[in-house]
């Protein structure tokens, strides 16, 4: 995570996400998947073939792509279908866009009710016998049962969570890095899924996105760094009022 300053002198914290060897693996049509839209299978970071099952290796062999560590599905409209085997780059996103980032949160193991659900616990002294971090009462008398989904101790973390509506401040095309506003679930160097934001406020935010995606062997030659309009770039002189 890094600080970033705007032209008006405000500081924002920014997370760096690297797009490492992403390829489109397969196209699944609407009828095949049984959903409302067709899907595209996309694979992330390269991994060794020894830890992959036979069925997984078939998909990679068919696409002609080295085996990937993470495989996810993206819902796409019919005009945005990409041929399997095309590499995906960070330039697919543009500064000023808003994204949702999904990842597995840091696993905390088996945790008690105070850490997991934020219960208040009991006082440390004044006669409390062996009860300082316990949940207390779990149901009422009339219910005569414990409701499903009652907050109790258990395994915390290591589940998929999403941060919505994160602004993209900057894109580095040379190293394929996306600078995303705020924090993102997951530990350092964990695998992360970045999508266009589903929030209604940011529905019309993207003016001219590269559609269906940014092709590296195409005609467009992008500069090494793409900045948002409001970012203070370090080549400018200091901010004055």
């Amino acid at each position, binding site marked *: 995570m890094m600080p970033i300053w705007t032209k008006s002198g405000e500081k924002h914290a920014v997370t760096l996400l690297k797009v490492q060897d992403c390829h489109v693996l397969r196209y699944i049509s609407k009828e095949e998947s049984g959903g409302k839209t067709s899907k595209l299978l996309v694979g992330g970071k390269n991994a060794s073939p020894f830890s992959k099952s036979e069925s997984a290796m078939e998909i990679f062999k068919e696409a002609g792509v080295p085996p990937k560590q993470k495989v996810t599905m993206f819902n796409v409209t019919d005009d945005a279908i990409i041929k399997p085997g095309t590499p995906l780059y960070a330039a697919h996103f543009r500064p000023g866009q808003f994204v949702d980032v999904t990842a597995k949160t840091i696993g905390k193991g088996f945790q008690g009710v105070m850490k997991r659900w934020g219960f208040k616990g009991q006082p440390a002294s004044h006669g409390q016998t062996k009860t300082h971090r316990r949940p207390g009462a779990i149901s009422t008398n009339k219910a005569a049962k414990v409701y499903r989904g009652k907050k109790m101790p258990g395994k915390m973390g290591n589940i998929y969570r999403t941060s919505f509506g994160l602004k993209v401040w900057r894109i580095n095309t040379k190293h394929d890095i996306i600078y995303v506003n705020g924090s993102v679930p997951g530990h350092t160097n964990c695998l992360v899924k970045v999508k266009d934001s589903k929030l209604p406020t940011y529905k019309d935010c993207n003016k001219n996105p590269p559609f269906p995606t940014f092709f590296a062997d195409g005609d467009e030659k992008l500069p090494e760094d793409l900045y948002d309009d409001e970012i203070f770039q370090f*080549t400018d002189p*200091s901010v004055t009022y």
Partner: protein
Amino acid sequence: CRVSSDGKPEKFQPPPKPVIIDRQKQREERRFLSPEFIPPRGRTDPLKFYIERKDMIQRRKVFNIPEFYVGSVLAVTTADPYANEKASRFVGICIQRGGKGLGATFVLRNVIEDQGVEMCYELYNPRIQAIEVLKLEKRLDDNLMYLRDALPEYSTFDVNMKPVSRLDHEEVPVNKLQVRMKPKPWSKRWERPKYNIKGIKFDLPEKKMKEAQKWSQPWLEFDMLREYDTSKLEDKIWKEVSEGL
């Protein structure tokens, strides 16, 4: 062979070796790498530090960040939208340099009209208009937070101080000042060995000093897992930075 005045043969004394002071070599050996360039020990990708360093070098090309240490007196002018001339100037002694990369900060302390004031500035904040070093010197410690509990005369510096001139090739002077403290209680127990402070003149009785040594952890300096050898990293980063600037 020679015979000395008392008649015994003299032992051969070789002529004294000439001491050659190579001024040029000394000048080159003195190089200063700002501490925020050295990445902390962790599991982050070195690519992130490389990219951060490119940004830092880019900022240093446009805006000069001078060499300074904890204990030097600095004057910082910042752009302030609510000040009279849209710029505010603060003079103080640097008591702490923290943070790595672009978020590196330094804290300046001064006593203005009998009120102690500490300002924390970010080195790479674009609102900073100028950083001037009024007096470049080092102190015996890396962290002068104990000045909060020292007598206020040690933290007062004239706001209109003139910069102290010094030659380029001289070594940075170390001020071996021992600071007198206000009576206890202090904000932190500075006599304890974990702070490892050499710049305070403790007027405490011997018994208190011996009791403080109870909290010493003499095994810490032999702990090999805590060692972080930065010499090779520093060489690489120094080459990168000097090529960039």
